[in-house]
């Protein structure tokens, strides 16, 4: 308990950064992932190809390498400078979006084809039948896998600690510099993560109940 109370400053800034990383990455990954999923079911072959290429390349790259690129490679490209925090959010978003896209695509496949046909039959173009009819039903079907993706994202934020972002994963390193027992620090970090993931699971249950589709 002393480890926690004596270093509350470290813990609060650490988890604050974790939550910032998580929220921004989750939102961007959700938006980008939805767009990529839509591309992968698009009637335009070039869109499908681009979506597939993005998912296959980024998803097959270890997250550490993606973050490595943004921490070390990106500054050398001569593009506008960004903070490590922003770089980490971009990297995590791009990486997580591939998993979001695949979860949503599997959801799209669960929506009976008749739903899209009926939408087309009343004159809705592809984009609208996807947005108004198919995606809302697909989202409901993929709440559980989607939350698994977000839980993984929450834990993946710790990888950013290796790239100078002072988030929760970095707490342990700082603690040992202050001469605190490493094991106690780690356990506290782990406990807070368990609580955060539990909160996400509650959110998942809420959405599952709210969006139940009767068939």
């Amino acid at each position, binding site marked *: 308990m002393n480890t926690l109370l004596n270093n509350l400053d470290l813990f609060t800034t650490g988890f604050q950064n974790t939550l910032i990383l998580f929220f921004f990455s989750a939102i961007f990954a959700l938006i980008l992932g939805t767009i990529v999923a839509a591309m992968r079911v698009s009637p335009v072959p070039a869109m499908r190809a681009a979506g597939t290429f993005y998912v296959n390349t980024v998803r097959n790259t270890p997250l550490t390498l993606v973050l490595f690129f943004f921490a070390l490679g990106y500054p050398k490209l001569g593009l506008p400078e960004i903070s490590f925090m922003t770089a980490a959010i971009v990297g995590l978003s791009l990486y997580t979006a591939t998993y979001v896209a695949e979860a949503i695509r599997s959801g799209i496949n669960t929506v009976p084809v*008749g739903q899209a046909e*009926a939408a087309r*039959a*009343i*004159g*809705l173009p592809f984009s609208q039948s996807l947005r108004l009819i198919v995606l809302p039903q697909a989202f409901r079907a993929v709440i559980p896998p989607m939350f698994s993706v977000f839980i993984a994202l929450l834990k993946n934020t710790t990888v950013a600690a290796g790239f100078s972002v002072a988030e929760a994963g970095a707490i342990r390193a700082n603690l040992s510099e202050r001469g605190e027992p490493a094991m106690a620090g780690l356990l506290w970090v782990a406990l807070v993560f368990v609580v955060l993931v539990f909160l996400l699971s509650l959110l998942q249950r809420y959405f599952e109940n709210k969006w139940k589709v009767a068939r």
Partner: protein
Amino acid sequence: MTTDAQATALVDVDRVNKHFGQLHVLQDINLKVSKGEVVVVIGPSGSGKSTLCRAINRLETIDGGTIKIDGKLLPAEGRDLARLRADVGMVFQSFNLFAHKTILENVTLGPIKVKGMKKDEAEKQAMMLLERVGVASQAGKLPAQLSGGQQQRVAIARALAMKPKVMLFDEPTSALDPEMINEVLDVMVQLAKEGMTMIVVTHEMGFARKAADRVVFMADGQIVEDAQPEEFFTNPKSDRAKDFLSKILTH
């Protein structure tokens, strides 16, 4: 058929061909439907009648030939196709009501999103249509809470809300329990009486006799007969039609 009738054909299917792999499902199909005409398409399963119906609003693509709606060639893709589909109402065998939307929203979605109608106006029209098909009291419910017959009547109202020039019915009563078939057929007969142009793929011979102007008999991807209902049922010309009728009319 006179040239005059051809000129006014609302739906003009001209030498249409389609293959599913090896299977030649539509073979040189010619079909003209004039404004206000009710055409019933019957035939054994696998004869291509559903495919023909779906090809008319391009839910199925075709390999050859042309389909014109009100003189306009069916566009291949994109916005033009969407606009044309808005003029062609479609009722499916499996209803296909939007599962996550209420009955009222199912009927107002098209007019609001496609025609740019105001919400309250669309709702007023939707309630009138739901009243007409007898399910107005269910307006706030989700599709799954309704019986099959009610769902299919909502599907008809949804199609009518777009004020289509022609209505396509793809086996509208085949997924229904027997006691619900008539409530849907009654709505369709009413619609036919009001002068709606209709192409109906069905096994309901009673409907064909009561409401059809013409019966088109299809078998093995071809139109075998095209005749007045009374003439077709009492005096079919082809052996294929005689065989089909003997099988369905004996019991």
